[in-house]
């Protein structure tokens, strides 16, 4: 039963106001082609969640798509802050429900296992907890451990409406592999009500059956499978391609101001019809070819 479709169809399945979990981590496996299409389709009031803020969330924040981000903080590493996200939070146009990496991972884990709550040692004594108790008073609580009598902070499970996960390999049913470190992507997918898989390569189910221990995303969780090359550009996809350093620098500079960011959007998102035109715009095959990963290094 094939779920292979276009990016445009997959994005069209997401209602205004939905909660979308995104697979990016800083500058790795960000759902960029997906984010661009969300912006072009003019989705609004989305909630986005991920453990560590990534370029996919930043561009959505900059384009005014988000009303809330649920995350654990994060940056682009040494190329700077997520300027759009930080600006939107400072200006109060989006609400930041901010935790830590493990709190987020545990919230997804609890969602993935059908746990009603999950205890955690993190956050206690911090202003993160105070802030969360203000902006999202229903996501934390205190429980007395029946075995020791100790008080524990507990977190509410997170169950996004859709997980959007950028992977290297998937079949038409949505069975998918993630190569390299997986951060919280497995828990995001399992916690979400359904999953959209964006894959670099589409393979036969026969290939999935050859290495069943690599299947992190089960087909039965997946509603749409979209195959597109370089769909995470300018972020990296391990074993597929490296990040595009020059383009990330360009994005970093542009996004430092709202005006600069608008120019970037006009050029690279609104100024192109689809992902294929975007790939042409950022340098086409000749440039993209230079990013292809060395199979030994993975980048």
């Amino acid at each position, binding site marked *: 039963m094939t779920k292979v479709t276009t990016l445009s169809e997959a994005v069209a399945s997401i209602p205004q106001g939905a909660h979308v979990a995104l697979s990016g*981590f*800083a*500058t*790795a496996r960000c759902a960029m082609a997906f984010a661009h299409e969300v912006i072009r389709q003019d989705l609004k009031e989305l909630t986005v969640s991920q453990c*560590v*803020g*990534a370029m996919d969330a930043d561009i959505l924040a900059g384009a005014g798509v988000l009303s809330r981000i649920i*995350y*654990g*903080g*994060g*940056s*682009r*590493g*040494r*190329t700077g*802050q997520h300027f759009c996200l*930080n600006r939107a*939070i*400072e200006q109060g146009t989006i609400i930041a429900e*901010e*935790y*830590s*990496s*493990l*709190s*987020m*991972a*545990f919230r997804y*884990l609890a969602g993935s296992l059908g746990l009603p709550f999950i205890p*955690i*040692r*993190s*956050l*206690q*004594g*911090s*202003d*993160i907890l105070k802030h969360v108790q203000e902006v999202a008073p229903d996501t934390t609580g205190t429980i007395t451990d029946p075995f020791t009598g*100790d*008080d*524990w902070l507990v977190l509410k499970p997170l169950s996004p409406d859709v997980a959007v996960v950028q992977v290297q390999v998937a079949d038409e049913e949505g069975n998918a592999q993630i190569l*390299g*470190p*997986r*951060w*919280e*992507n*497995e*828990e995001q997918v399992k916690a979400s009500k359904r999953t959209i898989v964006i894959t670099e390569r589409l393979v036969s189910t026969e290939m999935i059956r050859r290495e069943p221990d690599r299947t992190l995303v089960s087909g039965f969780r997946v509603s749409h499978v979209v195959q597109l090359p370089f769909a995470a550009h300018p*972020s*990296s996809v*391990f074993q597929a391609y*490296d*990040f595009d*350093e020059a383009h*990330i620098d360009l994005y970093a500079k542009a996004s430092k101001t709202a005006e600069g960011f608008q120019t970037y959007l006009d050029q690279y998102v609104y100024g192109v019809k689809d992902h294929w035109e975007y790939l042409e715009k950022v340098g086409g095959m000749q440039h993209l070819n230079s990013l292809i990963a060395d199979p030994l*290094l*993975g*980048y």
Partner: protein
Amino acid sequence: MTVAKEYASFELMAAAGARELKDGEIVAVGLGLPVVAAFLAKASHAPNITILLELGVVDPEPLEIGVHGLSDPRIWYRAKIHASFVDMLGAVLHRGLVDVGFLGGLEIDAYGNLNTTLLGDPKGKFRRFTGSGGGNDIASSARRTVMIMRHDARKLNEAVSFITSPGYLRGDGERSALGLTGGPSRVITDKAVLGFDPESKRMKIESIHPDTSLEDVLENMNFKPIVPDDLPITEPPTEEQVRLIREEIDPKGNYA
């Protein structure tokens, strides 16, 4: 070991950080200079430490450190494990197995509380920074925490503007009352190595770096740390450590 004739400030900081790690320990490493320090320790006196990166990487052997922090695939190269947050921060850190958490900071206070979230700007507003990532988790669950940061009066305050990662909170057992063990053990700046008084949990100077003075150290702090009578000079990096940083750990000079 021959002491290096010339070295950069960050190289001394990396060497001082490396010295905090004992062989065989499990170390959760945050982005920035802690990465250089941890690899330096592993390449020299502590070959059997286990290096964990929160996103799911254990004991990589990178050819270069890369520019994009933990998300740069250069730093995943030749790892023994590629796994997940739940594996690293859950099944190792929260499970109680991390000996040392190694963090960079934006602002720290007299009790080792770390702020990586909000800094006041001159207009009286706040500017946002990275937030926690795994920092809060590591500071909450590691057996001890080592921090590396700039020695700058705006960043060394009596109390931080936002506690992202708990140190000893306001001292007086406030941390342990919350069920948090561990706590900060060292703060390494570009002027000094600082520790914490076992009783009051207040920051105290352990050593000051060569080519600086106690006056310089204190002038550039916005609170008064405990100053012991006997104040050693921080051991500089060795020639071999400087060579390791320049030739093997960060050959492209990304951290220089």
